[in-house]
């Protein structure tokens, strides 16, 4: 029992990332009818927002401390981050320590702007082009974005640690009444899951309870009719693209401590997220979220020693296998609506 709970928990963080990316993909696909191969790149850009914030906060000036000598006997040069100089050493150090959560604030306007620029500058011109062209141009864009990041940040993963207060693990098993050390779970994974849940809840609430969301949902169901009602769908859809970019970006920001960001992380997640979208059902938001968590947890179960010794490498192909089986038995996915991309 405790082992099962542990594996479910282990699948939650990856599942959260899949769900968040797939949610954005579905939003873009459902509203704009565009297949966005650059969506993984947005996740990656989010992660590098965290890297940037961390670097900005660590910007330092150098002073010479005459009282201390280095091993050659020269006066020691000391780097002091500006934030420590401005806010005092302790507050400054705390700010630096909390750079990843702080990056969320920083990433929101950036991601909205990136999403807006992408939609107005490029995607907009592809609404009426064939899906193949949309795939190709966003694929090209994904390569460009990823190479730009590589140019500025290099090819190696960059550590973006979580705040030290949130380091370490919780003994969840103890709380649930199991033996000590039965279920040990890193705190940041819980934070990530909670964060994802809040964002997903926020997006759904936004779509459910605002007039804006209502129009968007109506547009997803039947774009032409809503257009005929004289509602400017395009403008709303631009905003939707910004929101989808924001969701992907925030998913990236917070993912840094779990897996140090590198330039190709977007592509790695993109392929799986597409599979998630297809399994969930093209155009279904709850489907995307449910399938994201489902496949994340499934992958976690396939990663257990028992599974990998029975079928070596099963953890690497389980998602694809499940996706293929589901598509063959339920071509519309778990919660797919009729008529979405049928032809």
């Amino acid at each position, binding site marked *: 029992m405790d082992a099962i709970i542990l594996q479910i928990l282990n699948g939650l963080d990856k599942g959260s990332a899949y769900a968040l990316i797939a949610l954005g993909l579905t939003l873009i696909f459902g509203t704009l009818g565009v297949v966005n191969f650059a969506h993984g790149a947005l996740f990656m850009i989010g992660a590098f927002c965290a890297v940037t914030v961390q670097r900005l906060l660590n910007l330092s000036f150098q002073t010479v401390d005459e009282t201390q000598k280095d091993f050659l006997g020269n006066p020691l040069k000391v780097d002091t981050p500006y934030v420590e100089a401005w806010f005092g050493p302790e507050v400054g150090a705390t700010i630096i320590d909390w750079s990843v959560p702080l990056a969320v604030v920083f990433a929101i306007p950036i991601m909205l702007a990136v999403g807006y620029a992408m939609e107005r500058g490029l995607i907009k011109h592809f609404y009426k082009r064939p899906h193949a062209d949309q*795939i190709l141009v966003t694929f*090209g864009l994904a390569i460009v974005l990823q190479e730009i990041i590589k140019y500025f940040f290099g090819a190696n993963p960059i550590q973006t640690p979580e705040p030290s207060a949130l380091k370490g693990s919780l003994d969840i098993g103890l709380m649930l009444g199991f033996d000590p050390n039965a279920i040990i779970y890193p705190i940041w994974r819980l934070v990530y899951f909670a964060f994802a849940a809040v964002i997903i809840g926020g997006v759904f609430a936004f779509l459910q309870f605002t007039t804006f969301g209502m129009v968007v949902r109506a547009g997803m169901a039947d774009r032409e009719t809503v257009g005929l009602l004289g509602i400017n769908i395009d403008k709303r859809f631009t905003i939707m693209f910004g929101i989808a970019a924001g969701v992907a970006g925030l998913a990236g920001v917070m993912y840094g401590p779990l897996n140090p960001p590198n330039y190709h992380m977007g592509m790695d997640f993109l392929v799986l997220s597409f599979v998630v979208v297809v399994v969930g059902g093209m155009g279904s938001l709850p489907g995307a979220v449910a399938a994201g968590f489902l496949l994340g947890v499934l992958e976690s179960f396939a990663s257990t020693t028992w599974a990998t010794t029975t079928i070596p490498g099963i953890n690497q*192909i389980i998602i694809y296998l499940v996706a293929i089986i589901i598509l063959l038995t339920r071509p519309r996915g778990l919660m797919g609506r009729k008529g979405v991309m049928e032809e």
Partner: protein
Amino acid sequence: MLGLDKKDTSLLIIVAILTLLAPFILNPFPTGSAMAQFNAGYPDLMQRFVIFGIFAIGFNILFGLTGYLSFGHAAFLGVGSYSAVWMFKLLSYNVIPAIALSVVVAALFSLLIGYVSLRRSGIYFSILTLAFAQMSFALAYSVLSNPKFNLTNGETGLQVYADDPQIFHRDSLPDMPHLFGLSMRSTYKLDIGAWSFDFNAGYYLCAVIMMVMFYLAIRIFRSPFGMMLRAVKSNQQRMNYTGLNPRPYTLAAFVISGMYAGLAGGLMAAMDPLAGAERMQWTASGEVVLMTILGGAGTLIGPVLGAGFIKYFENIFSKINDNILHQWFSFLPDGIEDFMVFIVHPFIGKGWHLTLGILFMLVVIFLPGGLVEGGQRLGKWIRNRGKGATDAKTKQEPAE
């Protein structure tokens, strides 16, 4: 000739002349001159030109004719390479059985994947092929590489070891891929004045095969089958209501293009007896899509042009470094020289992928017909300009 009309025959002859004379054409600059870095006439690169040409020609039969965008064709290339290396390991270094098996295995593999993927169309198809390719990559990279059952040798890549059976190997035969004793690496060097030209056995094998495959592609394009594939792209609904079943047509196109990919993979292994999983990654599938689009999807010559273009510039761009840039811009004042180098720097050397991505976007946005369409537009523009000038003349005359 050969069952082709006049236009296609001349196209085939031009391609044949270009490929056969490639060692000359691609080495226009004397060895040792400053421009020698733009030469592309060395065996390794020429082999890549024609092998990727074959890959792209095959991909175009699927994508160019039916419009089905597969993101998983690298899987068939990889499967072809693995099959070829296994033939080397088990039988001998002779390339004929290796290439034959690579085509057969790729055909079976693409039949399986195509059968499943083609149950859906549009982007579902693209995503399904993508998923299959990634799965194949994972299979090759880890699942099929374990002590109990090692088919792919994982990260190291599959290669021939001294203790492999190689049952038909004789000591008189070269210890590397060969065609009945003629080593694929054997190269005849021709020096004329300051120039040096390489004639490589492996290149010529690939070139001849490419010409045959190009010829077959022309035949397919001009056949009733090719017409049906274009009908699939144009209007599947009408096809269905005209008593035609689109699925076996698309499946046949899928398998044919998979066989081309397998052949390309087999040839790759025949040139260099090594097969690695990275050949199957979806970025590799993306590359062949790129070649086809860049050259001109749906045209005969486009994919060959695209493959040549990308492989050539990949090679050149990767070689350029800041020193070379400084040489180029040395005629400019110092400050501007540094600035120019600074601007160009991100796009060269390791930045080739950035250039490629930008190029890709520009082609899809502005020139969906690729280089072939670009050439046609340019030709039309020049003709119109010529005509425009004469038109202006004739218009003026009556006024006088």
